[in-house]
């Protein structure tokens, strides 16, 4: 049911490769912030990161232990459900493969658990195989609190709400459990190329 909006020209970005911009998205150079509540501030000496749930043995790292893990620099495109996309964003973090290395599990799903009570769910296979990181730097600088610092998830192939800010644990699960936005009207999977923004998309 698409029709022309009288007098609307639009302003296409000439410098953005259209094949990298999912339907309904526009490219921005800014880095907008979206959060459901106040920004948490966890001191680094109180910060830990855990793997919990359906695992043979839970794991936990302090900040120093986490930062001693091998890290990677990744440059990826990110897509927010509120319509902006940011191309070639550069991050540094620890691959989820590294965090799960040697973990024995029958889980098929995970929930990301974050400070402030935020959760988001996704299939385990969407965070393994070089598809997801726990990142602590953006553009070569420590990640700012309002963007999820000290560390956030980065799952760039899904809408960005699947990349929880202030992430503190991954819970491995045998069943799928809708997270915060997923309960509040947003799509359970969130593939930007399928434009899976909301329930029923």
């Amino acid at each position: 049911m698409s029709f022309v909006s009288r007098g609307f020209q639009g302003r296409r970005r000439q410098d953005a490769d259209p094949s990298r911009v999912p339907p309904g998205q526009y490219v921005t150079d800014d880095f907008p912030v979206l959060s459901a509540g106040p920004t948490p501030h966890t001191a680094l000496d109180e910060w830990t990161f855990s793997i919990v749930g359906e695992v043979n043995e839970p794991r936990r790292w302090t900040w120093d232990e986490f930062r001693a893990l091998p890290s990677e620099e990744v440059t990826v495109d990110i897509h927010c459900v509120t319509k902006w996309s940011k191309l070639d964003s550069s991050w540094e973090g620890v691959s989820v493969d590294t965090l799960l290395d040697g973990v024995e599990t029958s889980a098929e799903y995970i929930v990301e658990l974050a400070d402030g009570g935020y959760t988001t769910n996704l299939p385990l296979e969407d965070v393994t195989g070089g598809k997801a990181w726990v990142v602590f730097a953006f553009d070569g600088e420590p990640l700012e609190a309002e963007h999820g610092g000290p560390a956030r998830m980065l799952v760039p192939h899904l809408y960005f709400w699947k990349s929880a800010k202030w992430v503190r644990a991954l819970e491995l699960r045998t069943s799928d459990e809708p997270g915060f936005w997923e309960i509040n009207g947003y799509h359970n999977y969130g593939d930007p190329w399928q434009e899976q923004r909301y329930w029923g998309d």
Partner: protein
Amino acid sequence: MAGAALLGRLTWRAAEVVEVRPETPRVKTLVFDVVDWPGHRPGQHVDIRLTAEDGYQAERSYSIGSASDGNRIELTVERLDDGEVSPYLTGELRPGDTIELRGPIGGYFVWEPPQGGPLLLVAGGSGVVPLMAMVRARAAVGSDVETRLLFSSRGWDDVIYRDELERLGGNGLSVVQTLTRSQPPGWRGYARRVDAAMLAEVGPSAPERPRVYVCGPTPFVEAVAEALVGLGHEPTAIRTERFGPTGG
């Protein structure tokens, strides 16, 4: 999931402009008649879609400013000079035009009168729009839930919904304005950015456990939410919605 089956797909609907109302020099309210609009809860938003003659499309999200009222919804849009969509909505669109729209969207930044109070609403500029939907819904059902609206604008002429807010005050609603850049002669209200001291004076205080909704530009929301946490409000009682520097 169960909700998907209940709600079905949010389909694009034709929305005809029935009125365009200037609010301030930079802000207009667009009143739409939306075929088969299912109704909405205060605080929810819609996606709109514009299509150029060559098929190019732009989508954006806008908060709904009106209380649920049949097929009628109101969006209040601030013109961002370097934006792609807001100059069209505020400069070009006129009664009789039709755009596409889908919604309502969002289930968290929502307040309905039966949820009760007390309620603290803190708005920066056009961040007042979803909070106005709450204020209007409250008035529409004759609710006397204790409600404070602290509203920060640059100057008196930039105060969105100014006359209506003056009319709606009372019956448990108090509206407190702060004007951050310029004040009219004789202004006796606040004349600075929202800070902890102002939030403490406006109340309700943390022990009264108000439900708190904060909406505005990101630095505004960051500062207000942080000040509220500092005043002892439970972080989980503070719901925020932020407008980035882009989005227009």
